């Protein structure tokens, strides 16, 4: 029998966005509702496509402090699916383990299956009295699950399409915590037809033949990190004669994160730079087709405008004027940060032979880079001018780490800029 089903994961309903700077009041509401709205979009898409069933592979909520609003939104969404005749299957992951946190939902609607934590359960999807598919799944009891749960999955003797639903780190992804770590071979050993995985926020197909193994990625990007950028959504899987014949990605997100680089070479002044930023924002808005976009701009390369930006703080010189310009043109793009990674027009290497203070400044940097002792001494003598008590609680030991080569290079440019500025 031929059918379609949807695979989503990592909803993180009502999860606060992180890594962004504070936003305009107009965007606050959009951000607040973004995760729940993305889930609403998932429900609407499933109903519109009349899929046979929906599987959700963990991390529905962000932590034990799951909010009432998020739980109600989730319950109501699944209820709508059930009333449309679409069963749904849910496992819990490391962010919303069953035994941690609390549940505002005492009874799930009919047609909603939440897998337990004791063992891998197998639940059939029945249509017109005929078993369409079997869904295998298990939830996390607690946050830290180090057991390879994939090894517990075994194909059922019944001859129908079989799906494995699991929250895990498959293939030792270094960017994510190693919860329920497993290998591709472990997954193959179960002899299922499709592995609906969750945990990795970046969408990826680990295998594109039987069994198809896929991470749909998070349903809504949650921070400006690379793995959270770009389109987010769910997968629609076509099954023909018990074989996966195609996997389609359906974007369902409400807010997107993006970053663009602008090479400052050839930009004559700050006004020109603002024009380029607005142009980049326009392109971004076009790419994301009218969705709200949180955009970061990184300035790179060498150019004369680098010097102009040193005349004040980049926030006042570039970021705020650019935000004002965008507010007047494209309201869907919010400029989060403008990072200045640009360099002065002249090459630092060219300073070495000049024999002046700048040359010796460069030489000082060379000495510093060559000497770990000097770097440590730098921390001891110069990096302890802050009220560090609370900062340490928030930022960890970021203050105490030795300056990196990049930091020293940027500091050198900053020092040279100040010297030149005074000159």
């Amino acid at each position, binding site marked *: 029998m031929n059918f379609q089903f949807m695979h989503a994961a990592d909803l993180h309903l*009502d*999860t*606060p*966005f*992180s*890594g*962004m*700077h*504070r*936003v305009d009041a107009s965007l*606050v*509401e959009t*951000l*607040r509702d973004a*995760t729940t709205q993305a889930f609403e979009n998932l429900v609407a898409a499933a109903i519109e496509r009349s899929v046979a069933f929906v599987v959700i592979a963990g991390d529905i909520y962000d932590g034990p*402090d799951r*909010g*009432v*609003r998020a739980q109600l939104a989730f319950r109501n969404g699944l209820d709508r699916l059930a009333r449309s005749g679409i069963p749904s299957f849910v496992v819990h992951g490391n962010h919303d383990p069953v035994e941690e946190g609390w549940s*505002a939902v005492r009874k799930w609607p009919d047609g909603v299956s939440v897998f337990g934590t004791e063992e891998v359960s197998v639940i059939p999807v029945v249509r017109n009295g005929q078993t369409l598919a079997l869904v295998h799944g298990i939830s996390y009891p607690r946050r830290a699950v180090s057991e390879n749960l994939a090894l517990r999955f075994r194909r059922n003797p019944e001859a129908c399409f079989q799906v494995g639903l699991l929250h895990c780190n498959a293939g030792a992804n270094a960017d994510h915590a190693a919860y329920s770590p497993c290998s591709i071979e472990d997954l193959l050993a179960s002899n299922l037809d499709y592995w609906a995985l969750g945990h990795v926020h970046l969408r990826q197909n680990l295998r594109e033949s039987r069994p198809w193994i896929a991470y749909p990625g998070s349903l809504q990007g949650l921070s400006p990190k690379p793995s959270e950028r770009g389109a987010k959504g769910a997968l629609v899987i076509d099954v023909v004669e018990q074989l996966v014949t195609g996997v389609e990605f359906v974007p369902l997100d409400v807010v997107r994160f993006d970053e663009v680089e602008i090479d400052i070479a050839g930009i004559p002044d700050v006004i020109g730079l603002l024009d380029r930023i607005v142009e980049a924002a326009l392109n971004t808005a076009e790419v994301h087709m009218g969705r709200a976009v949180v955009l970061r701009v990184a300035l790179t390369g060498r150019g004369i405008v680098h010097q102009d930006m040193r005349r004040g703080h980049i926030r006042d010189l570039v970021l705020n004027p650019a935000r004002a310009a965008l507010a007047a043109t494209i309201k869907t793009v919010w400029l989060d940060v403008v990072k200045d990674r640009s360099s002065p027009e002249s090459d630092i290497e060219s300073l070495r032979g000049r024999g*002046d*203070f*700048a040359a*010796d*400044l460069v*030489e*000082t*940097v060379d000495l*510093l880079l060559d000497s770990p*002792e000097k770097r*440590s*001494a*730098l921390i*001891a*003598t*110069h*990096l302890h*001018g*802050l*009220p560090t*008590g*609370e*900062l340490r609680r*928030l*930022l960890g030991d*970021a*203050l105490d780490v030795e*300056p990196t080569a990049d*930091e*020293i290079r*940027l*500091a*050198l440019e*900053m*020092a040279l800029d*100040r*010297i030149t*500025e*005074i*000159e």
Partner: protein
Amino acid sequence: MRLRGWHVEGFGLLHDFQVEGLSDGVTVVLGPNEAGKTSLLAFIRGALFGYPDRRRRDRQYPPLRGGRHGGRLFVESDQSMFVVERFASPSSFSLTQPDGAVGTEADLHQLLGGVDAELHRNVFAFSLTELQEFASLQVEGVRDRIFAAGVVGAGRSARVAIGRLVSQREEIGRRRGDCRITTLRNRLRELEELLRDAKARATRHPELRRATDELDEEQRRIGRDLADARRDMAHLDALLTAWPDWDEREQAEKEFELLADVPDLPNDLGTRLESALADVRTQGDRHKAREESVFNLERRLSDLRTDEQVAAVAQDVKRLASQIGNIRTWRARVGTLNTQYDVLQKRLADEAPRLGPGWTLNSVRVFDASIPAAQVIADWGERLDESNQAVRELEDEARRSDSNTKELADEWSRRLEALKRASPLDDLQTLSERDAAVRRLRPRLALLVQVRAELQAATQRVSDASRRADAAKADAERIDAEMEQRSSAIRNSPELPTPDQIAIWERGVRDLRTALAELAAGHADLRAANQRALDVEERATEAEQSAASAAAEIDRRDKILAEANSVPEAEVISSGERTARELRRRLADLDVLSRDLRVAQDRRADRQRDDQLRAPALVMPGLKRKIAVAVGVLVVLAVVLLILSQVAAAVVAIVVAIAGMVIAFALSGVTTPAADGSAGTAEADRNIQELSDRISLLNESAKSLAAKLGFSELPDRAELEDTVDMLGVQYRARQERDREASAIEQLRVAVEQTRARAAQITKLARDAQGDNAVSQRVCELEAVILTNAKVLAFAELPTVAALEEKAAEVREFADKIREREMEMSAVRALEHESTRARNLSVRLEKEFMDLTSDITSNHKVRVSECEEATIAIARTLGLLEIPEPAELEEAAKQIDDQLRVRRDRDREVELVEALRRSADAGRTVVEETLATLATRREEHELLRANWSTWKASNGCPEALRPETALQFFASVERLRESVGQLDSMAAERTKIQTELSDYSENVFTVAERVGLPRTSELALAEDVVEGLRERVEADAGLRVERTRIGSELERARHALANTERDCVTAANTFDSVLFEAGAVDERDCRARIDKSRLKVDLAKRVQESEYRLRSRLGIGPQADVVRTELRSGERQEWDARKSDCKGMLARSQPLHEDALRRHQTAIESLSALERECDVVTIATEREAVVAEMRDAMSEWRLLAIAQSLVQSTLRRYEVERQPAVLTRTASSFSRITEGRYHSLVTREDGIDVIAADGSRLDAAALSRGTAEQLYLCLRLALAAEFGRLSVPLPFVMDDVLVNFDPERAKRAAEILLAAAPDHQILLFTCHPETVDLFVSLDSSTRVIEIQRQLRKVIPNPPDTAVQRS
């Protein structure tokens, strides 16, 4: 930069004091006390950097002896002169540049090599007082400027850069005070508080939501009841509103049925009848009026008579009359012309001879005085003038050229003689080569000095390196000792918990704090829940009691109802009412029909009486038609017989037909009334019969209805009304009884509902107590708290105070740990420092070795190479050894002088040659000019001869000149115009006389044609024409009137004919209307039309009623229901039901509004809670603030690293650059003190001097004179270093040698003189022996003396060493 002079307009004691031509080297200004030396020093400082104003405590030196406060300095830079002018008034600064352009303060700043006022005051221009203060050299500005000059080149300052970095860094984060990180941290604390609060509030959400849902259900239920009641209300409204229309329609339908037999006539027939009648009358009146009009016109036409003889000459008379005006004008003109002609002819005869002998009027007429002729004469004049002018110009040119040529020749002779007398010189190339050699030699000498100094400095560095290596080693040992001491202190300190343990405790405290807050909230909720349960129980009891009392009320009212008298059922009463109403209508109809029957019978009797009076005529109206048909048949028969050739029969048939026609015509005049009377009677009979039938039918049905009401016979109206009233009373009683029954039933339902509600409330109360989630949550929380409390060593549930006590204890531990960590961090830093010090020691030792080898391998070799190269160049100038700078400059000056003289000589030779060439060319020009002059004179004479010939040939007087020719031509032209005027007068006079004669002839010819007598008098002719014209006009008027009346008559006749036709048409129209109505006359027609209209009106009423009903009820099933119900006609019942509905609505509406309000309030509370519990938004902002803090931190780190980089580099510079200044200072100081002190060492706050015996002495401890010598040397060294890196500036000192002993003063003077080639030196003194000292050491020393009585001073010329004044 060099100072070349000044002009003080007014400054302290100085007034109009000018000095110019100051040279390089040393200049001594000698003057007694109060001569103005200190003022001069202040003036130089002020002119360069601005005078002190009143805001500063510095002395301002107002002009005591007049003049404007200020003046100007003359300075030279790069061999260009600048004038710096500055006065004390604002904006009075100017800098005049070599090209005359005006410069700015910035340009002056650049001239001064970027030095500022403070640096200049402390290093370059100072008094004795300032010399004595070492502090002046420690001023940060001085240090900065000196070291900054060494550090980052002209004008840069690493210290300023550090200051800015520090400022930026502190703006982001600092230990105390406001900064960005503090602001962010405060916001973060607020957000975390909000977050905790929001999470705590979120627990109330499910309960609120449930309450909201219940209220929603309640308001929906009441809303449904309300909607039902409104629907009923609308239905009853529809019934009651539709009833009048329904009733009216019923009535109209009945009346319509009575007129069913009346024929339908067209709607407009009445109108057409009226119109036809009016038309008949109008046309008759119009015909009569038109006949009268025709008669009147015919009479007026016959009265008009015309004259044919006058009409024949009418055109001629008009033409002649139109010419009368011209004839009169011409007659007057002939008289005027005669007079003017005579006068003009006489004047011309007198003027013609004045033009010349033999000139007559005929001569004037033929002379050519045209414009071309005048132009030819003008051309002659121009050519003669040009020729004459050319001759004169050539004469002047010849004279001028001759004079110039003579002057050039004289100048050439004079300069040639001078050249021959001049002395011989070397050639230019030789001199240029020598000059180039001097230029090459200068930098060589400077380089030599430099490499020698470097060699000396390197030697000094070697000793410094050795010393610094020792110091580094000692530092390392000191740091090791300190490190050991602090490490042992840490080891001996008491044991502390681990940071992890502290973190666990802190987390435990935080969790417990939150949990305790939640527990408190849980307890509050629990109390609230119990209270709610009690409230609910109370409400249930109240509901039960309310239900019991309502049940008692029901029983009571049931009994009353049962005891009441029996009343027929509502349907029975309604049926009776309907029957009574129907009976009432039937009786009314019977009355109407009976009245109609009586009227019809009366009419029939009247008609019968009329018929009897007109008895003879009983022929039916149809007979006439039958006779006409028979005649027609006979005519046809006759025609057929004729065709068949049966003539006799045809003739008989024709005779019979004619007889029939005659009879028919005879009958048509008398038989119509009789026929009409018979038909009317029959119609009346039919009508009476119909009415009788309908009355009997109605009577039967009425009786049947009366029987239903219990009457044996038809009741009269009063009986019927009594019956109706009785039925009304019964109906109201029935309604009252039904309402009571309904109210009892409603009460019964309400009791049931109240009991069910009470049961539900009781169940809710039980649920609230039994399924108490809050209680469970409180228990769970307590369990969690107990678990967590164990972490903090609490045996039982802790109180908030105990927890806070524990938290303080944990914080204390954490602080101690942090202190220890900082101490350990400091120890680690000391370790790093120790390592660094050891590394430094090793590096310095290596540096010592490197420097030692560098001296032998580099510096010495460079010195010898430099010396050899210098000697090689010096030999090209004829010098055998390395020359002294003064020697070289002397040689350079001589070569410069020789080069200048050589160039002047070469320019003079070129000038003499050029003069010679000019004189030769002048002579040639003079000769060529004279030849041209002779040719031009000949051409001029030939032109004059041609002019005379032309005059003769054109009739002009010989004496005529071109310039007077135009005047002669004008005279001739004026005379000729007068002659032309005379001729035209004569021609005009002749023409007018001919015209007058022709006119008279024409007039009299016309007069004859109308029979008037002929005459030749012109004046009479004009009268004749006037008379004829009047007669012609009168005749034409008559003819026009006749034509107009004729046309009018024609139109009137035509109109009369039309009116006759219209009369016939109107009569026909009237007849056709009567025929259409089937009426015999106008009255009959009107009656028929009225009945038809009544029928139409009734049909319209039915339609309109139906239309209104439809518009009120619409169509469809609901409307059908209403219509069905309307047929019953139970209006009173509807009224009663409507009243009930209204009551129901009035009761339910407030209930519904209240329910809605409570539901809305609940929704708002829920929304408010959701807003307050907007954890996502708060948490997102918290994350954003943390991100911003992280960014601020990164930025802060970058700034700190940048600051560290600049500081490290700057320290290195201070270490590496300082020796150069100190070395120079030590060298000079050692020389002054004859080696008593040989070197210097700087400290953070001062300088130590190293004596020959190796002892070290603070400079502040030196004697006054020795300290001043040290500070003088230090300033000289700083100035030299500054000059090396930027611009050498003049060194100005005011009496700085007074405390030196003679020996040291002499050696100081030697040092100053040695520095003078690099720095211009100005020394102010009041001691003549100081002047003597400098002059004895260097005879080229310039001396300027100033007295207390000031005046303008010119310095001594270069070849005079001393000038005293």
